[in-house]
C-alpha cells in the first residue's frame, strides 16, 4: 500500500447544521480519494472491541461462573460437556440475541433520527414498538376469549409481536406517504399511531386478569430471559440482509440532509430512497422486537450518544449499531451478575444509558441532531 495520508487540521469545511471536530484524514491512491475523520473510525472500532469484550465476559459470568480460558476452549469445540451446555445452549443465544437486538435498534434509531431530522424520532415514538406491544399483549391477554386473540395466541407471542410491528410500520409508511415521505409528516403520523397503540395496550391491561397483566407487562418492558437459538438464528439472518441495506441507504441520507430539492438535483431518486430508508428501519425494529420485546430507549439514546462521540453532524449508522449492541449486552450482564434481583434488560438499558446521555448533555457539547 502506497497510499498517501494527509492530515488536515482545522480546515474541514462546515457540514450542514454542525461544526465537525477533530482531525480529518484524506486517503489518496491514484485517481481515487476518500476523506474521513479519525473519530468516525475510532469510535466504531472502540465500540466493536467493547462489544467483543463484554460478550466474552457475559458468556463466562452468571450463576455458574466459567473462566475465560474455559469459555474460549468451549467456543472452539473442546471443553467438558456441562460447560459446553451452559455456554453454547444457555448463554450464547442470549448474548447473540442481545448483540443483534442492540445493533438493530441502534441502526434503526440512527436512520429514523437522520431521516426525520428530529432527535426524538425513535421507533418508540413512531409507534412501531407500540404496534408490537399490541400484538404481543393481545396474544398474552385475550388468547382464550376472542377469535382475533385465538389466532394471535396460536402464532405465539414473538410472531404476534412481529405482525404488530410490521403492521404498525406499514400503516406508518402508507399514511405518511403523499408523493414521497417527508420527515415532518412521518413523525406526526407516527406519534398518532403510537398513542393509539399505547391506548389499546393500556385498555387491554385494565381488562385483563392481574396475572395475565403482569405477564404482559414483563413482555412490554423487554427481556432477554430464556432466549434460545430459535430466536437468535432468524434474527441473525434478517440482520445479515438488513444492515448492509441500511448502510447503503445511509449514503443517500447524507445527500438528503441538504433538503429535497438539492438531493433531487444531485440525482437521488427521492421517493424510492425515502421508501427504502423507512422500510429498512421498520423491518429492523420489527425483527429486534420479535426477538426480545420492545427494549425501549436504545434506539432513542444510542444515536444521540454516537453523534456526540464521533462529533459529526448526524448520527453515524455503524457506530450507533455497535454502541447499541454494547449497551444491551452490558445491561443484560448487569441484571445477571451485579443486581440482587434479576430485572428485565429493558429497564437496565435506560438506567445505564440515560445518565450517560444526560452527562453528555450537561458537559455541553452543542451538537445538533
Amino acid at each position, binding site marked *: 500500500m502506497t497510499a498517501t495520508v494527509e492530515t488536515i487540521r482545522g480546515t474541514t469545511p462546515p457540514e450542514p447544521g454542525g461544526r465537525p471536530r477533530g482531525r480529518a484524514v484524506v486517503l489518496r491512491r491514484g485517481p481515487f480519494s476518500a476523506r474521513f475523520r479519525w473519530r468516525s473510525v475510532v469510535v466504531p472500532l472502540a465500540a466493536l472491541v467493547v462489544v467483543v469484550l463484554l460478550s466474552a465476559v457475559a458468556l463466562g459470568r452468571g450463576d455458574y461462573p466459567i473462566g475465560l480460558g474455559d469459555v474460549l476452549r468451549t467456543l472452539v469445540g473442546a471443553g467438558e460437556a456441562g460447560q459446553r451446555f451452559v455456554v453454547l445452549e444457555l448463554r450464547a443465544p442470549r448474548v447473540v440475541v442481545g448483540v443483534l437486538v442492540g445493533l438493530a435498534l441502534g441502526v434503526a434509531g440512527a436512520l429514523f433520527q437522520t431521516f426525520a431530522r428530529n432527535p426524538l424520532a425513535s421507533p418508540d415514538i413512531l409507534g412501531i414498538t407500540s404496534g408490537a406491544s399490541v400484538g404481543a399483549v393481545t396474544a398474552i391477554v385475550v388468547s382464550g376469549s376472542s377469535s382475533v386473540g385465538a389466532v394471535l395466541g396460536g402464532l405465539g407471542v414473538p410472531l404476534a409481536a412481529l405482525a404488530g410491528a410490521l403492521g404498525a410500520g406499514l400503516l406508518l409508511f402508507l399514511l405518511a406517504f403523499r408523493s414521497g415521505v417527508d420527515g415532518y409528516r412521518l413523525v*406526526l403520523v407516527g406519534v398518532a399511531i403510537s398513542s393509539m397503540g399505547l391506548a389499546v395496550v393500556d385498555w387491554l391491561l385494565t381488562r385483563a386478569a392481574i*396475572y395475565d397483566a403482569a405477564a404482559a407487562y414483563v413482555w412490554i418492558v423487554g427481556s432477554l430471559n430464556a432466549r434460545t437459538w430459535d430466536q437468535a438464528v432468524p434474527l441473525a439472518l434478517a440482520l445479515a440482509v438488513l444492515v448492509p441495506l441500511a448502510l447503503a441507504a445511509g449514503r443517500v441520507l447524507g445527500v438528503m440532509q441538504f433538503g429535497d430539492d438539492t438531493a433531487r438535483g444531485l440525482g437521488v431518486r427521492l421517493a424510492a430512497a425515502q421508501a427504502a430508508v423507512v422500510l429498512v428501519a421498520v423491518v429492523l425494529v420489527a425483527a429486534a422486537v420479535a426477538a426480545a420485546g420492545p427494549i425501549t430507549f436504545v434506539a432513542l439514546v444510542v444515536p444521540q450518544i454516537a453523534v456526540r462521540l464521533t462529533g459529526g453532524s448526524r448520527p453515524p449508522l455503524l457506530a450507533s449499531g455497535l454502541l447499541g449492541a454494547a449497551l444491551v449486552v452490558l445491561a443484560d450482564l448487569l441484571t445477571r451478575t451485579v443486581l440482587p434481583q434479576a430485572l428485565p434488560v429493558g429497564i437496565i438499558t435506560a438506567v445505564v444509558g440515560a445518565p450517560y446521555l*444526560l452527562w453528555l448533555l450537561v458537559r455541553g457539547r452543542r451538537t445538533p441532531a
Partner: protein
Amino acid sequence: MSVPSATRTPAGTAAPAVTPRTAAARRTRRRALGTLALLVLVLAACAASIAIGTRPLAPGTVWEVLTDRSLRTEEAVIVWDLRVPRTALGLMVGASLGVAGALMQGHTRNPLGDPGLLGVTAGASFAVVLAIALLGVATPAGYVWFAFAGALAGTVAVYLLGAAGRGGATPVTLALAGSTLSALLYALVRAILVSDSNSLDAFRFWVVGALAGRGADIAWQVLPFIVAGLVLALVNAPALDLLGMGEDVARGLGQRVWLARAVGLVAITLLAGAATAACGPIAFVGLVVPHAVRSFTGPAHRWLVPCAAMAGALLLLTADVVGRVIARPGEVQVGIVLALLGGPFFIALVRRKRSATL
C-alpha cells in the same frame, strides 16, 4: 433545530395577488369565526356532558334539576354530585392540556412538543408508583398531591439538566433532557411494577387517565394552579411570537429571553402538573390541539393560546361523553377514547396539504 425556520410562515405573509389589507381582514375574520365556533361547541359539549351518562335521564328532568336546587331526588344527586363536577373538571383539565401543549410546541419549536416532554408525566407516574408501593395509597384523591409534587420535581430536574450545558437551555437540549429523564423515571417505575403485581394492579387504572371517580374536591384542589397557569400562559403568548423569530431577533426587539422562557415553563408545569394530578396522564390533547387550532389561527400565539384552551376542553369533554356511551353499562376511560378517536383525526389533519407548520 429540527424544523428549518424557513418553512415557518410569518404572520404578515400574504398571497402575492391579494392586497395586504384584504388579506389581513380575511385572516382576522377567519380567526374570529373559528373562535366563535369553538365557543359554541364547548358550550354544546358541556350540555352533552351533563345530559348524557350511564344512567339515561330525560333532558327535561336534567333541566328541572339544574334550575331547581331544592330538589333532592336521585336524579338531582346524579346531576349535581357526579355530572357537574365531572364536566367542570373536564373543562379545566382539557383547557390546561391544550394550552400547555401550545406553549410546549412554541418553546421547543418541535412538532412533537407535548406537556409530557418536560418530564411532567414521568415525574408524576414515578411519584404515584412510590405512593402505591411504599405507602399503600390507593384512591384518586390520595394520588393528587403525590402526582403534583412528582410533576413539579420532574420539570425542575429537566430544566436544570437542560440548562446546565454550556449553551444553556436551548430547545434541543431541553427536549432531549426531558425525554431522557422521562425514560429513566419510567424504567424505575417499571422496575417496581415488574416485581410487585399489587402495585401494577392499582397503577394500571391510574395510568390510562380518566375523569370518572374524581369528585368536586379534586376539582377545587387543582383549580388555583390551573387559573394561575392560564394567566401566565396568556401573558407569555406575545413573547412567544417574538421568540419564534429567533432568540437573537427577540433580544434585539427588547424581549428578555430568559424571562419569557421562565414564565412559559412555569405555566406549562402548573397546567400539565395540575391536569395530571387530577386525572392521570392524558397524552393526546396537548399534542393534537395546537396542531388542529393552528390550521385556522396560524402560528400567532395570542390567538393560538386561547383557542387551544377551548379546543382542549372541547376535545376532552367530547371524548369523555363518547366513552360513557360506547360501552354501556360500563365506561371506557377518557384517555383511551381520546387516543383512538384523536389518532385518525390527527393523521387526517397532518395529511392535509396545507397544514400549517411550526
